[in-house]
């Protein structure tokens, strides 16, 4: 008996080792860096650095853009997930098509958008040829939102679809049977039953969107600074690891707070990612 239990516990060993080496130790190191000066003395300055005007602005912009992308993803993904649910087994090709971009490198996809959106880029080339007004959104927040939506949409579709597909057809039929029309059935039955999927999807889009620096770098032309860019620059440009770590800690707290806020809506805890 003992050895059997021991054996099972040993199976968790590799994962535990991984967690300690690559999650827990780095977190502790970051914590130490964040609360010390370059000389190793204790300080709160790195944390308070978030209060500077530039950093606050970046954080607010990050929150705005990631919130906007999350909402757009949700509005795009929900109808699609409903259609996929209706299609039943014959939907695998479409699911495949939506997941397909995820097989390509994230950077490549974002750079591709850059060349599509550029002033003399592919899209404007076609528009000019058709004598239509060109669109000029590269290096604007709109381009960043577009990049976020494009990159993170599959992460919204999959959990939503999984959740909606689990709803028994007869539960929907029962609502109709009890006199509910299509809209009433959606509002009173389908939407509440899909809350766990919405929460998973929102979490999986919002968190990476809030912390990204690659998309804003490439599509924002380093003119628009998100909080992710500022932290990245602390590490790669200023070589000020202490301030970078301090800002990261604050951002992490923001992520945790948002998750706590979202999870209030999730009574069953089914959609919990954290």
């Amino acid at each position, binding site marked *: 008996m003992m050895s059997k239990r021991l054996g099972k516990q040993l199976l968790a060993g590799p994962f535990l080792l991984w967690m300690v080496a690559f999650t827990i130790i780095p977190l502790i190191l970051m914590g130490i860096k964040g609360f010390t000066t370059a000389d190793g003395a204790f300080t709160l300055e790195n944390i308070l650095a978030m209060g500077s005007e530039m950093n606050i602005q970046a954080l607010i912009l990050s929150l705005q853009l990631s919130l906007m992308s999350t909402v757009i993803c949700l509005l795009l993904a929900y109808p699609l997930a409903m259609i996929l649910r209706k299609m039943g087994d014959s939907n695998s090709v479409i699911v495949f098509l939506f997941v397909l971009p995820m097989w390509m490198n994230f950077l490549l996809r974002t750079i591709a958008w850059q060349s599509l959106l550029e002033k003399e880029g592919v899209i404007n080339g076609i528009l000019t040829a058709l004598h239509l007004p060109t669109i000029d959104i590269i290096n604007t927040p709109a381009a960043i939102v577009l990049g976020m939506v494009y990159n993170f949409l599959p992460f919204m579709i999959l959990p939503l679809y999984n959740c909606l597909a689990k709803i*028994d057809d*007869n*539960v929907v*039929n*029962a*609502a*109709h*049977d*009890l*006199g*509910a*029309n299509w809209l*009433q059935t959606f509002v*009173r*039955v389908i939407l*509440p*039953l899909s*809350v766990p999927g919405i929460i998973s999807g929102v979490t999986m889009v919002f968190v990476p969107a809030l912390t990204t620096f690659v998309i804003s770098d490439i599509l924002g032309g380093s003119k628009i600074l998100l909080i992710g860019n500022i932290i990245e620059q602390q590490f790669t440009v200023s070589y000020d690891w202490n301030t970078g770590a301090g800002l990261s800690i604050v951002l992490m707290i923001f992520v945790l707070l948002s998750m706590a806020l979202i999870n209030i809506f999730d009574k069953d805890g089914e959609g919990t990612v954290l």
Partner: protein
Amino acid sequence: MSAPLIDLVGITKQFDDTLVLDDLNLSIQENEFMTLLGPSGCGKTTTLRIIGGFTQADKGQLFFEGKEISGVPPHKRQLNTVFQKYALFSHLNIEENIAFGLKIKKKSRQYIKDKIDYALKLVNLDGYGKRMPDQLSGGQQQRIAIARAIVNEPKVLLLDEPLGALDLKLRQDMQYELIRLKNELGITFIYVTHDQEEALTMSDKIVVMNQGYIQQMGTPEQIYNEPENAFVADFIGDSNIIDGTMIQDLVVEICGVRLPCIDTGFGRNKPVDVVIRPEDVELTLPTPDGLNGVVSHLIFKGVHYEMEVEAGGFTWLVHSTSLSPVGSKVGISVRPENIQIMNKPASEDEEAIANDE
């Protein structure tokens, strides 16, 4: 007979290349407990779904109180359904589940509260209103599903294998419960099941279906005692179905032995199917010119012994309260009134229908 409450006329339904219902005609009277009985794929659930409005028939008409309702969506029909596996709303508590239909119809708060209390009492689940569906057992959830349907005061309650997911004891209890409910409510029940015992216990009228055709329609007694063809005989309970020859009126030959029977009008020397229920086979001492055989299997079933007897080239299934050990030589006798004679299927097509499960 008064005008039927529901009338199905020439209903035909095809899924992909499979004909599920072929020109089905069926009338359902008010205040009737009618059961659609048959093996899976016989079209019974499709029939129910067409009545409920969840499936559209390709051809044919559906009348409710004389008015055609084929194109009316489910939420506008005066009937409610109890679904397989309950289909409760898992995000709502029991009260909210029961109140669902009433809230849609914008009934007053007091009316809804009274209805919930009434329905919970009716299904013996008083005091369960604040629980969530997943805190209830299968049988309790099923009763809530029934309560949720009946608070809307439907004229017809459609039940789609509602007891299928329950264990045997609970199923038997629920059968009595359903009969009581039907008597108290005085509404029409249309019940779908593949369980012949369930059908015999509860129904006023049974419709035996196979391959999209109605095989036989009648009271439980008629269906059990006078099956019209081999499929019905085989599907309803155990039976011995033996090839025989109708020698003349009142005399049938099976296994090389002539037996007196009570059937007439089959003609002379005509091949027929003979159905004898296992409980109607009487084992005697071997007789010189009777049908004699040897017991080959014996199982104790509680209420009776189940035996197999090899006699006249046929394996007879016999239910008896007295024991004949394996290997013992026995005679077989059947009372004339317990011999049920049926015409062989006229065409190969009919035979295919009758034989296919």
